[in-house]
C-alpha cells in the first residue's frame, strides 16, 4: 500500500506531469494497435461494406492478430448518431478509427478535435485535420471501363445509372461512365435515377424495372447491393455490373463484370504507421494503377473486341495515356465545360456539379 502523504502526492504528481513527455517517445511505437471500423451498413451487403470488411480481415491477416485488434460498428446512420459512435470509440481507447461513409465527415471532424491522440480515417472524405486523414479510391476509373463495355454492347443505346445521392463522387462516376460509352456510340444516352438511399434493395429493384421498361438495356448502379442486377437477369437485358464486389452469383447471365474495391493495402499501411508511430495526416486517392480499384472477371458473353477495348481502356488509365475526363466535354445544357486538350484534374474533380451531354438526370 502506498500511504498518501504529502511526499507521495508530489512524487505521483511529478510522474504524472512527466508522462506526456515520455509518451511522445517511449510510447510512440505500439506493441498492439486497437482499430475500429464504423460502417453504414453491414458486412453482408455483398457490396461497399463487404469490401471494407474484407479489407479489415486481410489487414489483420497481414499484420497478425497479436499486433492489431479490431472492432466493427455496423448500421451507423450518418449525422448526429454517428458522432456518438465515434466519441464512444475514442473514449474506449481505440488508436485509429475508420469511418467508411461520406456523411460521417462532420461528426469525425468534431470528435477528432476532442481526441487529438486518436487517429481518424475518413473514407471518401474531402477535408483533413491534424489527426484526420482521408482515403478514397478512383472508382470513376472503373466506371470508364464499364462505360466502354456499355457503349459497345448496348443495342438500344440507352444505359442507366442508379445512384444513391448526387454527391461529387456519384456525379463523376456518371460522367466517366457516359463519356466512355459515347466514345463508342456518339448517341449514347445515360438515364440517371437517384433512389435517395445507400441501401433499399426493393426500391433499387423497382428503379431498375422503371428504367428497363423505358428502353434501358445496360444498368450500372452506385448503391450497395445486387438488387438491380437481379432485375436485369430476370428481364433478360444485356446486363449490368457489380459494384464494390463481384456479384456474378446473383446474376450469372446479366453480370458483365464488376468494379471491386480493394481496401486492404490502405488499411495495412494506415495501421502499420500507427504501430510504428509515424502516422501522418494525409490524403490517399489510388485507383486502377494502385490496385485499389480492380475490374473483375468478364462475362463469357462479352465479345472479344469489347474485351479488348475494355482492357485497352484499363491499360490506358494505368499508364496515364487515357484520362477519364479528357476534353472536349460539353455538359447537358450544351455549355462547353472542358476545352479540347484540357482535362478535369484532381482538384477540379470535386467541384463538378454538371452532367455531360446526353446524360438525363
Amino acid at each position, binding site marked *: 500500500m502506498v500511504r498518501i502523504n504529502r511526499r507521495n502526492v508530489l512524487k505521483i504528481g511529478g510522474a504524472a506531469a512527466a508522462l506526456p513527455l515520455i509518451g511522445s517517445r517511449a510510447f510512440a511505437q505500439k506493441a498492439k494497435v486497437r482499430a475500429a471500423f464504423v460502417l453504414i*451498413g*453491414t458486412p*453482408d*451487403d*455483398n457490396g461497399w461494406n463487404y469490401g471494407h470488411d474484407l479489407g479489415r480481415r486481410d489487414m489483420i491477416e497481414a499484420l497478425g492478430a497479436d499486433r492489431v485488434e479490431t472492432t466493427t460498428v455496423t*448500421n451507423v446512420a450518418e449525422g448526429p448518431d454517428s458522432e456518438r459512435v465515434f466519441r464512444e470509440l475514442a473514449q474506449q481507447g481505440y488508436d485509429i478509427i475508420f469511418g467508411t461513409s461520406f456523411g460521417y465527415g462532420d461528426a469525425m471532424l468534431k470528435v477528432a478535435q476532442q481526441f487529438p491522440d486518436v487517429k481518424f480515417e475518413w473514407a471518401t472524405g474531402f477535408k483533413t485535420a491534424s489527426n484526420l486523414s482521408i482515403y478514397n479510391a478512383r472508382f470513376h476509373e472503373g466506371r470508364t471501363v464499364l462505360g466502354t463495355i456499355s457503349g459497345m454492347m448496348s443495342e438500344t443505346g440507352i444505359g*442507366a445509372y442508379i445512384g444513391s445521392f448526387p454527391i461529387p463522387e456519384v456525379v463523376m462516376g456518371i460522367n466517366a461512365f457516359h463519356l466512355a460509352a459515347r466514345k463508342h456510340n456518339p448517341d449514347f444516352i445515360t*438515364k*440517371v*435515377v*437517384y*433512389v*435517395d*438511399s445507400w*441501401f*433499399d*434493395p*426493393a*426500391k*433499387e*429493384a*423497382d*428503379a431498375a*424495372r*422503371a*428504367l428497363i*421498361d*423505358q428502353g*434501358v438495356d445496360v444498368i450500372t448502379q452506385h448503391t450497395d*447491393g*445486387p*438488387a438491380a442486377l*437481379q*432485375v436485369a437477369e*430476370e428481364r433478360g437485358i444485356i446486363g449490368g455490373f457489380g459494384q464494390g464486389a463481384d456479384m456474378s*452469383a*446473383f*446474376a450469372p447471365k446479366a453480370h458483365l463484370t464488376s468494379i471491386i474495391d480493394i481496401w486492404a493495402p490502405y488499411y495495412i499501411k494506415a495501421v502499420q504507421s500507427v504501430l510504428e508511430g509515424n502516422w501522418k495526416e494525409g490524403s490517399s486517392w489510388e485507383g486502377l494503377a494502385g490496385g485499389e480499384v480492380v475490374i473483375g472477371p468478364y462475362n463469357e458473353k462479352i465479345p472479344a473486341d469489347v474485351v479488348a477495348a475494355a482492357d485497352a481502356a484499363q491499360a490506358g488509365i494505368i499508364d496515364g495515356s487515357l484520362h477519364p475526363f479528357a476534353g472536349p466535354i460539353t455538359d447537358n445544357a450544351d455549355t462547353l465545360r472542358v476545352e479540347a486538350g484540357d482535362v478535369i484534374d484532381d482538384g477540379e474533380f470535386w467541384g463538378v456539379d454538371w452532367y455531360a451531354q446526353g446524360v*438525363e*438526370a
Partner: protein
Amino acid sequence: MSIDITIAIIITMVGASTPLLLAALGELVVEKSGVLNLGIEGMMLTGAVVGFAVTYDTGNPWLGILAAAFAGMAVSMLFAVLTLSLSSNQVATGLALTIFGTGFSALFGQAYTGKPIALFKSVFPDSLTDDRFLRVFFDYSPLVYFSLFMVFVVWWFLQKTRAGLILRAVGENDHSAHSIGYSVAKVRYGAVAFGGAMAGIAGACFPLILTPQWVEGLTGGRGWIALALVVFAAWRPGRLLAGAYLFGLIATMELYAKAAGGAFRILPSELWASLPYLATIAVLVMISMRRTKSSSAPACLGKPFMPNN
C-alpha cells in the same frame, strides 16, 4: 404515355403495393380489436428472413410463405403475452418488437446472405403472362391474388360475421364485451396472431416477389408505411386497398418519372418520398374534422384491458 409503359407501371405498382396491403390488412384487424401493434416492421423482417431461408433450403416458395406466416405469428405472440396477459404498454412493447425483429432477422439471416433464390412468379401460362395487354391481369405472383382475396376476407369477416362483430365490440368497448361474457383476451390474442401472420407473409413478399435476396433490413421501413396506411384507410378494408395501391403508385411513379426525365423531374424526389406520410396527415385532419363515428379509430385502441371484476 404509351399503353405499354402504363401496363409496366401498373405491374410494378402492384408489386410494390402488395407487402403494404398484406401487412396493413393484418394491422387493421389488430387495431379493430383495440390493440395497437407498432411491431409490424419487426414481424415483417422476421417473415422475410424465414420465408427466404425456407424457400432457399426447400426450393418451395409455398413452404416459405407458410413458414413466414408462422414466424410472424410466433413473434407477435411475444407481443401478445406482454401486452395482453401482462398489460404492458402497447406502444413501447410494439417498438421493442420492431427492434427485436430487426436484430433477430439479422442474426438468423447471417447464413443466408449472398445467396440468390428464384422469384415466385405468376403461375399462369406464358401465353397470358407474355401477352401485351393480358399481362396486366395475369403477370403477378400468387401472393398478389392472395392479398386481394384477403381484402375481401377481412371485409366479410368484420362486416358479415358474428365473430367479426364480437371483435369490433371488443375494440370499441372492451368492458361491455367482457360483461356480456366475451373473452377480451382471447379475441385480442386471435387478432394479434392474425396480424403477425399477415405481416410475416408481407415480409416474405420482399425476397419472393421484389428482390430475390436476403440482406439485413430488407424491408426498408415499409412496416411504418403500412401503419400509416391503416390510419389513412380509416380502418376500412376497401379503402385500405385503394390506399395501398395509391401509396404503391406514388413510390413507383417517383422512379418512372425520374427514369423518363422531363416535367416530373421538377418535383424534388424528397417530396415524392414524403407524399404517403403527407397524405396520411391530410386524412387524419379530415377524420378529425368530420367526427363521424364510422371513420374514426376504435375507441379502445391502445388501451390495456384490466377487468374490474
